[in-house]
């Protein structure tokens, strides 16, 4: 058994232990941890929360029992004073000696206290440990008893300094922040954003003093003020020094480890110091000639050291991401990537609104394709997404400004949800948890909510900055699972319609049973059967006669079942154009079979009240008269409505009726996820209401404008412009592509408008796919559509020509009797079914 001594029990030292014991092979090592503070490691990042609850336990990373349970010797209140490299031992302040095989130095840092005259006076504090805070609290309480309007200053306007500013404000003291640089948070913010932050902080009562070099601390034994220059003083009763950190590297000096010029123990990318049995991690380690004061790189160092001791060759990233996001006194502040970018590398886009304390800056590469960094003040909601886009080098919108001001005109955010990130995207940089891991534990059922995911993956258990994103991912994944129950067709097929479409196509499945056996389970149901039937129709142009038992209610009998179980009959009247002779035929049929007749909204004639037994005879007469099925019963192309167009209309610009007929003839019988309707208008007066259809064509000077994805119904939507001024041929080409793409990808019973809403990238994306062929599938789509067009057959003609098929229209299998349950009542010279009794 080998011994590892960890010197330092801060966040990084603790993280080393946690990571180490979770690894294979760690059972062969004994861990001894030294901490000089009286308590085990706690969360310094959230130190200011101590003011809110004064509960040190709440900040604890793990209780003492955790060390016991994991067989780690935790020795608190005992500082390691010397390292004897030759004998591989250390001694402590209590003069005890311990041997090690590996030594891990995680001594962290101490606040940097500038050598200012008088800094030793009473009332001057540093902001680092719980003890520091307790000292400040006690002093503030004492102050307020004698001086209710006591003032406190914070030396340092950096990240930690502003946190300290909030802390003293919470203590009831008048807060002043004093910064040497001409701006706040000089390492993270540019001047403009710093100004926005300053105005905001001032508005809530924090006094900001910039460009102030403190000469000395005034007071006789106890602080009474600060002096900056001649005649420039600030009276304060307490001072908190927050002027940065210095690595705690004294111990390395005792044993001649290589050090940086300005401190820090030099490490290589395996976290080894100049003595390979000694590692240094966290804020004491000087890596790439830098001290990293953030939690995330510290944790990565802990991981690298743990792995390396166990014989793996993991190395530290060569570039450390210094992006940060925090909430300062209710103000979001974030910076990522390169916040200040030289003009040589790209250009910046700025948005500033001082009235709302908002500032956003993004830096974009010259070619406009990559996000290089940015700054957000006032609203950092988009930080996580922007940070991920930056980290993953993801493509950014054509108009990069959409990233910070939102896509105009469409109301939506210009980037999708967290779900759009690649699985490899690192969501929690502290704990190095990827999107794949987070979604994975939900998908495999091991976690069901954010708390469980955090516990299981450790995501957002450290700085918590990624919490909104993790919550998003958890919710979206859960939704997608919940939806998957909805999205997956039903209990028999664990696939979406689109997936099922793909499977059936690739495996060339042609019957329902075959499909169930290949990729489903059980016996099917009223949900999956019609879906599969429609897919067969969309792929092979199978009519509903081929496998009638899987057809939906209406398709099964090629007619719409009505309120009393009778059916309606709708012959196709392309474009709404019909001769008087054909009108007479319809009239004769209606009279003969005593049918209620009505003109439909789609410019054709519906005959209601036909009994099942009569359907074949009715259709024989219609077909003999030159009619075809109108597919009014199917999730299929219904009609292409038209206005009279230039043929008769004095305003018409083109022959809308002719084109409507051409389109209806082309797409008749086309089965789709939901019904499809079209319209063609001869001019922009739009008498055919084409823009209220799934596809609408309007004649303009110079050609046809093609609009898609509109509908009437419960949520009316106007169709949107897909392309302008095209000729008939081009219009049909784009329509072929559009319709086929919709048929391929939509969910069952999803009309084109809803489908477009769900389509990532919306109309712009659809234009790219259909017009620009961005997916390189246009040929395939056109071919598939042409196959369907060529394979069209009137299914009513099929039905009446086949004796066996005709049999399914008998009401009884053992009798020629009709359904004696039917009752009709008169209604305005026609008839209607008796009202439902219940």
């Amino acid at each position, binding site marked *: 058994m080998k011994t590892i001594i960890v010197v330092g029990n801060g966040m990084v030292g603790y993280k080393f232990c946690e990571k180490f014991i979770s690894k294979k092979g760690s059972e062969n090592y004994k861990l001894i941890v030294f901490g000089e503070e009286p308590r085990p490691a706690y969360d310094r990042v959230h130190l200011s929360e101590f003011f809110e609850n004064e509960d040190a336990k709440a900040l604890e990373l793990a209780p003492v029992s955790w060390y016991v349970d994991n067989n780690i010797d935790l020795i608190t209140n005992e500082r390691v004073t010397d390292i004897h490299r030759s004998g591989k031992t250390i001694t402590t302040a209590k003069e005890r000696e311990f041997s090690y095989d590996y030594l891990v130095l995680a001594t962290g840092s101490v606040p940097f206290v500038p050598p200012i005259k008088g800094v030793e006076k009473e009332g001057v504090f540093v902001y680092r440990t719980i003890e520091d805070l307790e000292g400040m609290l006690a002093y503030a309480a004492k102050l307020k008893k004698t001086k209710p309007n006591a003032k406190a200053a914070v030396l340092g306007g950096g990240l930690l300094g502003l946190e300290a500013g909030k802390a003293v404000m919470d203590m009831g003291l008048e807060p002043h922040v004093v910064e040497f640089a001409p701006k706040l948070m000089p390492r993270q913010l540019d001047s403009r954003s710093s100004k926005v932050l300053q105005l905001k902080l001032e508005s809530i009562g924090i006094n900001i003093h910039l460009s102030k070099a403190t000469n000395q601390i005034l007071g006789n034994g106890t602080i009474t003020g600060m002096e900056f220059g001649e005649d420039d003083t600030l009276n304060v009763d307490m001072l908190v020094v927050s002027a940065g950190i210095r690595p705690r590297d004294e111990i390395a000096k005792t044993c001649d480890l290589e050090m940086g010029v300005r401190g820090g123990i030099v490490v290589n990318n395996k976290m080894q110091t100049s003595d390979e049995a000694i590692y240094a991690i966290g804020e004491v380690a000087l890596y790439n000639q830098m001290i990293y004061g953030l939690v995330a790189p510290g944790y990565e160092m802990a991981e690298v050291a743990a792995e390396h001791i166990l014989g793996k060759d993991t190395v530290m990233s060569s570039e450390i991401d210094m992006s940060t996001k925090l909430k300062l006194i209710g103000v979001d502040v974030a910076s990522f990537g390169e916040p200040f970018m030289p003009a040589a590398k790209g250009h910046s886009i700025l948005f500033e609104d001082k009235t709302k304390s908002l500032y956003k800056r993004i830096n974009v590469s010259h070619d406009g394709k990559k996000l290089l960094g940015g700054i957000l003040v006032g609203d950092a909601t988009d930080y996580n997404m922007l940070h991920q886009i930056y980290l993953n080098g993801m493509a950014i919108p054509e108009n990069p400004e959409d990233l910070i001001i939102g896509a105009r005109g469409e109301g939506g955010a210009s980037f999708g949800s967290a779900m759009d990130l690649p699985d490899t995207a690192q969501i929690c940089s502290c704990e190095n948890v990827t999107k794949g891991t987070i979604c994975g534990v939900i998908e495999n059922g091991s976690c069901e909510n954010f708390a469980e995911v955090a516990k299981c993956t450790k995501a957002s258990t450290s700085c918590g900055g990624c919490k909104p994103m993790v919550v998003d991912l958890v919710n979206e994944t859960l939704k997608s699972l919940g939806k998957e129950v909805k999205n997956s067709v039903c*209990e*028999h097929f664990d696939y979406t319609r689109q997936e099922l479409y793909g499977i059936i196509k690739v495996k060339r499945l042609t019957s*329902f*049973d075959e499909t*169930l056996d290949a990729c489903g389970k*059980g*016996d*099917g*149901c*009223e949900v*999956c*059967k*019609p879906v599969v039937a429609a897919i067969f129709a969309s792929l092979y142009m199978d009519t509903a006669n081929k496998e*009638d*038992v*899987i057809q*939906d*209610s209406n398709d*099964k*009998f090629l007619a719409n*079942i009505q*309120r*009393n*179980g009778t059916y309606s009959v709708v012959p196709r009247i392309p474009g709404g154009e019909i001769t008087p002779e054909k009108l007479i035929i319809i009239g004769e049929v209606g009279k003969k079979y005593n049918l209620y007749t009505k003109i439909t909204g789609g410019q054709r004639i519906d005959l209601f009240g036909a009994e*099942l037994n009569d359907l074949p005879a009715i259709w024989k007469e219609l077909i003999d008269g030159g009619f075809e099925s109108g597919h009014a019963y199917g999730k299929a192309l219904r009609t292409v409505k038209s206005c009279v167009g230039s043929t008769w209309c004095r305003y018409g610009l083109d022959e809308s009726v002719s084109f409507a007929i051409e389109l209806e003839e082309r797409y008749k019988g086309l089965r789709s996820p939901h019904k499809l309707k079209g319209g063609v208008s001869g001019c922009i007066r739009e008498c055919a209401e084409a823009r209220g259809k799934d596809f609408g064509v309007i004649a303009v000077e110079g050609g046809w404008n093609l609009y898609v994805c509109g509908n009437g119904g419960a949520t009316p939507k106007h169709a949107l412009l897909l392309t302008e001024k095209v000729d008939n041929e081009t219009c049909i080409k784009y329509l072929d592509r559009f319709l086929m793409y919709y048929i391929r990808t939509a969910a069952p019973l999803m009309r084109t408008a809803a489908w477009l809403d769900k389509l990532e990238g919306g109309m712009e994306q659809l234009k790219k796919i259909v017009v620009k062929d961005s997916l390189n599938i246009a040929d395939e789509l056109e071919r598939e559509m042409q196959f369907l067009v060529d394979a069209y057959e009137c299914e009513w003609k099929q039905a009446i020509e086949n004796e066996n098929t005709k*049999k*399914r229209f008998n*009401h*009884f*299998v*053992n*009798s020629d*009797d009709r*359904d004696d*349950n039917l009752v009709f009542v008169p209604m305005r010279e026609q008839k209607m079914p008796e009202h*439902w*009794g*219940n």
Partner: protein
Amino acid sequence: MESILSKYIKVSPNEVKVWFKAASVGDFHENGGACVKYRDKQIAVFNFKRKGQWFACQNLCPHKMEMVLSRGMLGDENGIPKIACPMHKKTFSLETGENLNGDLDAIATYPVKIENDFVYIGFSE
């Protein structure tokens, strides 16, 4: 309406007094249904080929009192064979008659037997 419904009462195999010879097996679509007329009753009969079973129930959907169940779609819900009404997709267990997706009254079911390629339905009268 009530009077129509009251005509249909579940018959268990041990209550069968009459085996009515309805039609030949070939008259029933595989995995589909057909309606059999027996006296003044309409009985939906299903050839659930995939399960290798036959089922019979009232043709009347208790929801809107239409004679349509034989035109519905067969399926199963967690293994329970069911029929979905073509009107509003109310589903009923073909074993117990229970309404699976609502709280409608159960439909009456009847025993079916196949002998010499003929389909017989069992009635208690």
